[in-house]
């Protein structure tokens, strides 16, 4: 019994001391596009998720996005530079921005920059990067519209335009045909 109590006491000290000796914070960040198609002039949603897979809280976490140049992309909503005071170990945070491409063509979507302090008493920030979606194409609006738009009004207008070309000749023919078929039927009946 006495031996067991001593053993429990030793184990408690070991684990108690272990709490004070955590590893540093370690952030993994992803950058993803939510759009199936990136189209000129249409909103593009970019989501950033930062996971703290380390053992300590990460502090002064700054996410900086510089790959979407204002000449090529209009920022609709969100901020390209965001800060979190603290991300607890095992926790994650997300951030979303909405952009609108001004141009079309091929575009290389590189990673955003993440900097943080890996522990509460760290002085030098750790610099990291998010994942990069890579090179993709920004579709021209005209091509997207041609492929996907239902064009209901345009088809309705087309239908209206074809009605005179089809209905007028048909009605003229049908009227004459009906008239003479009626006469022919009547003559067959009298005969």
């Amino acid at each position, binding site marked *: 019994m006495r031996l067991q109590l001593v053993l429990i006491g030793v184990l408690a000290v070991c684990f108690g001391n272990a709490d004070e000796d955590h590893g540093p914070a370690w952030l993994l960040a992803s950058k993803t596009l939510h759009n199936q198609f990136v189209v000129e002039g249409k909103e593009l949603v970019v989501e950033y998720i930062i996971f703290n897979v380390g053992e300590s809280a990460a502090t002064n976490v700054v996410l900086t996005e510089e790959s979407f140049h204002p000449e090529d992309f209009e920022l609709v909503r969100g901020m390209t530079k965001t800060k979190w005071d603290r991300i607890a170990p095992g926790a994650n945070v997300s951030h979303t921005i909405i952009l609108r491409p001004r141009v079309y063509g091929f575009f290389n979507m590189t990673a955003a920059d993440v900097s943080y302090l890996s522990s509460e008493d760290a002085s030098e920030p750790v610099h990291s990067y998010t994942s990069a979606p890579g090179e993709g194409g920004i579709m021209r609006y005209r091509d997207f519209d*041609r492929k996907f738009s239902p064009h209901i009004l*345009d088809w309705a207008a*087309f239908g209206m335009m074809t009605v005179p*070309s*089809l209905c007028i*000749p048909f009605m003229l023919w049908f009227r004459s045909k009906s008239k003479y*078929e009626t006469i*022919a039927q009547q003559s067959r009946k009298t005969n």
Partner: protein
Amino acid sequence: MVGKKLTKQEELLLQDFSRNVTTKSSALFYGNALIVSAIPLWLFWRIHQMDPYQSALVWAAMTIVSTYLVAFAYRNTKFILKHKVAQRREEAVNREVMKSLGDDKKMSRKEKDERALWKKNEVADYEATTFAIFYNNAFYLVLAIILSFYILKTTTPTMYPLRLNV
């Protein structure tokens, strides 16, 4: 024989077996052909998103070619249909003409027959013309839609007016 004047019957027969159309019919054919050839341009502009300013020359050239070809189709279809319609309407037209001229005793039998023949030709001409226009318009528009939206779907829109007229 030279300089002999043709009878009405002979004139009608010549007209019957000729593919030539009157000036009025020709104007009607070309007018309708132009309208129906221009209609698909709306689709090229609004749905295929072709730029009208850049494509104006191609569109104009292809519309002219298409107008000629559609008018040619009208003429041929009318020629084929006219004989069939004339055979079908003969009885009814004769009855109509005899009914209207039956009491006219000043007119001889021969004149009445000529009048009936002329009327039959007129009715056949009218029905053949209207049906030829209707049939060819419907065929052209359906072909335009099928070619540009299904068969030629993967080609660039610039090719559509060119291939439509082939």
